[in-house]
């Protein structure tokens, strides 16, 4: 177990370096001048441009720039924006908001998706089953911004049940609707995967054994059946956190949440390469760690999976 974990962590190193370099290279190759429009209507003075070029090593090769960036990164320094703002501060301000939103989305996805999946998997072809099948198809087919704007208008404006935007305090009650919107498509997938998985395992021999043992039905389903059916759902949920955070930009925009989506968009527009790269790098880290967590969860759920 310990050796497995160490090996998996070591595997993360080349993946991390590879992905960060790709991102760095991508942002580096985007054409454009970071100092265009920096000094009002006039062209910036040469002294300023020379100073900035020197300070940010802009005339060095990409290799040198990347190496410097990585060196600083490992010392916990994300670099500075061209306005000398610490990128670390931008990340510290934006990330918790997006993380909160994504976690709420993940929780909604897990609870509603799994619940619907279990109920429909047990009783296929019933009314509930058809209802869930149709509504999940609906959620998958509709783009996030449609669901977001429609629900915001209905609940927030027309009926006035909720405040249409999220305040800077990011209260949990305010995040329920944005979380639902963000997680809606994944929720539909979770419901469908759970449904199939439950329906498949329901006829398994060990379920029959559990019934033959005279166990109450809720224990047969809640313990024997559920544990076996969770494996594909856990994969989906685990790898989804990164996707939710990365995909939060639209939801953040609709509900006025100050998260990484907005930050990265602004950074791309203003050619703040250090900011773009740093935000994505942290996102990569989230992906990698969640992946590792999923692998570890597998083994906890299914002892037949061995760490070797």
């Amino acid at each position, binding site marked *: 177990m310990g050796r497995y974990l160490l090996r998996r962590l070591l595997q993360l190193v080349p993946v991390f370096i590879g992905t960060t370099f790709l991102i760095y290279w991508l942002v580096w190759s985007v054409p454009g001048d970071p100092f265009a429009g920096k000094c009002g209507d006039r062209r910036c003075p040469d002294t300023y441009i020379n100073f900035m070029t020197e300070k940010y090593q802009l005339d060095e090769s990409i290799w040198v720039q990347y190496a410097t960036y990585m060196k600083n990164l490992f010392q916990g320094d994300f670099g500075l924006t061209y306005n000398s703002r610490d990128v670390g501060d931008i990340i510290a301000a934006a990330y918790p908001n997006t993380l909160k939103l994504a976690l709420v989305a993940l929780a909604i996805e897990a609870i509603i998706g799994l619940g619907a999946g279990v109920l429909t998997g047990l009783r296929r072809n019933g009314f509930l089953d058809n209802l869930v099948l149709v509504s999940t198809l609906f959620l998958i087919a509709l783009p996030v911004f449609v669901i977001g704007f429609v629900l915001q208008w209905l609940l927030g404006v027309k009926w006035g049940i909720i405040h249409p935007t999220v305040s800077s305090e990011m209260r949990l009650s305010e995040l329920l609707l944005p979380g639902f919107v963000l997680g809606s498509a994944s929720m539909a997938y979770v419901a469908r995967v759970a449904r199939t998985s439950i329906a498949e395992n329901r006829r398994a021999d060990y379920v029959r054994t559990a019934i*033959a043992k005279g166990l109450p039905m809720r224990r047969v389903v809640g313990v024997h059946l559920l544990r076996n059916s969770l494996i594909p759902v856990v994969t989906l949920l685990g790898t989804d956190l990164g996707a939710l955070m990365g995909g939060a930009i639209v939801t953040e925009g609709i509900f006025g949440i100050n998260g990484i989506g907005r930050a990265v968009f602004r950074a791309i527009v203003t050619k703040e390469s250090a900011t773009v790269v740093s935000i994505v790098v942290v996102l990569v880290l989230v992906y990698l760690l969640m992946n590792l967590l999923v692998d570890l969860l597998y083994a906890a759920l299914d002892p037949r999976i061995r760490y070797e």
Partner: protein
Amino acid sequence: MSDILVTEQSQPGADGSGRPSGRLLEVDDLRVEFRTRDGVAKVINGVTYHVDAGETLAVLGESGSGKSVTAQAVMGILDTPPGFVTGGQVRFHGKDMLTMSTEERRRIRGEGIAMIFQDALSALNPVFTVGFQIAEQFRIRRGIGRAEAKKRAIEMLDQVKIPNAKGRFSNYPHQFSGGMRQRAMIAMSLALDPEVLIADEPTTALDVTVQAQIMDLLAELQRERQMGLILITHDLGVVADVADRIAVMYAGRIVEEADVYELYGKPAHPYTLGLLDSIPRMDEKGQQLRTIKGLPPNLMNIPPGCPFNPRCPMAQPVCREKLPPLLQIGSGRASACHFAEELVNRD
């Protein structure tokens, strides 16, 4: 354990004397059909058998004869749909289980009637330890605490002769060998001290030497506990040593029921005769194995008359027209063949 149902005084060996209510477990004219898209398959067509305390009944038949489905209907673990019980009774201590409440029936499972399955690898839950699955019976069904339940589960593993029971408690099913897994399965089913044990082909998935060990173990535990044992098998070799009575099934019916010695000595149904003839024999080495010609009937379209008539070497015109009922011949044996008397009386 004081909360086990008290066994009524049953009458072992009283078979053939009508149907007194002192029986432990009685299946009476049970009918099951499978409703599928292609049509309705009549899988069980009026099966009647019984088992008393301390008695072993072997149910013998080819695949598809309905022997396992009967057991599933008795246990109440039939896959519904497609399987539906359409008639008959299953009486446990004289009470019909098919008309009981779900809850009442659930309580009989494991405690009154327990079952072990053919393939212990798929029948045990792969993600829980063997010990957990045995201790669960004590914890959930008896409300016994974790530590005490563990102690008892280890005792059960010990009883089925699993070496190092204490260490094996926390192993998973896939870490057991085939024979050990079936032992664990037996330990689990016997945890609540059931009065009837249904063993559905308990040795089919095992190799021959292990088969013998498992059969010995089952016979021994059955003697010790005075359980009624229903042994479902297609293997005539397995039943000879342990069974008291044998019921032979064909196309969802019992075609012959007899004491084990009588059945082996003088089968009263041509199907039984065919089965006995198809056992490989040491003194016929090198010769082709004898088989029963043809295939079991399609259960969606069972031939009129005796269902065995298309394969029967003795078939007469009457066999194609009249379904022979299961009739008593002599003491304690029955056959569903128009020519049962002739078969028994021939030399």
